[in-house]
């Protein structure tokens, strides 16, 4: 069974804090993704990575950075959290059958609230 785990289910942070969201997958997948999901806006891609130390911007990278030092781990960093970053954050991984494989396996999500 594919397993994608995220470090926290719920997180509350203050404006201006640096926030780390961690994601780990156990299927040796090359591709990993970070999305945010908001009501009425759906899933929006923040960043993705197709290899260790590689990263590409998605649709909404502003205010975020990522790190992929190991194949199984992909971290999302909010350098200075703001209230408009309150959202559900979803990590996904997928095999390298093309960069955007139709197969993406999602973690359970982290509900981040910035106050």
């Amino acid at each position, binding site marked *: 069974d594919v397993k994608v785990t995220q470090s926290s289910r719920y997180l509350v942070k203050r404006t201006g804090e640096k926030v780390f969201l961690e994601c780990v997958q156990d299927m040796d997948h090359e591709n990993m993704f970070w999305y945010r999901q908001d009501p009425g806006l*759906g899933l929006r891609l923040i960043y993705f990575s197709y290899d260790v130390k590689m990263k590409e911007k998605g649709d909404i990278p502003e205010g975020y950075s990522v790190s992929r030092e190991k194949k199984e781990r992909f971290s999302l960093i909010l350098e200075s959290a703001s209230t408009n970053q309150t959202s559900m954050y*979803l990590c*996904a991984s997928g095999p390298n059958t*093309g960069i*955007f494989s*139709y197969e993406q396996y*999602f*973690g359970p*999500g982290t509900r981040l609230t910035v106050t």
Partner: protein
Amino acid sequence: QKEVEQDPGPLSVPEGAIVSLNCTYSNSAFQYFMWYRQYSRKGPELLMYTYSSGNKEDGRFTAQVDKSSKYISLFIRDSQPSDSATYLCAIRGNNRLAFGKGNQVVVIP
């Protein structure tokens, strides 16, 4: 124009009814068409995928693609309360996976 459009309106049906969901997309070059299911407080999971026009069945679920109209559909037969979830269409093309906004489906016992 958005790459994929999905009317996000919620849908309530009685148990046993047929559920019909659909999405439209803008680019005729899009190739792979997927449906993801997302239960409350969980991440989406891949339900079905197809890459050609026509129907694909998997148990009570049928995915339909009409490339000439750029229209994809998901049908759920004999719906069960356990089918209550949000259903997102997703389309792969232009080197990205574009998701619809999702339809919340509630099956009432």
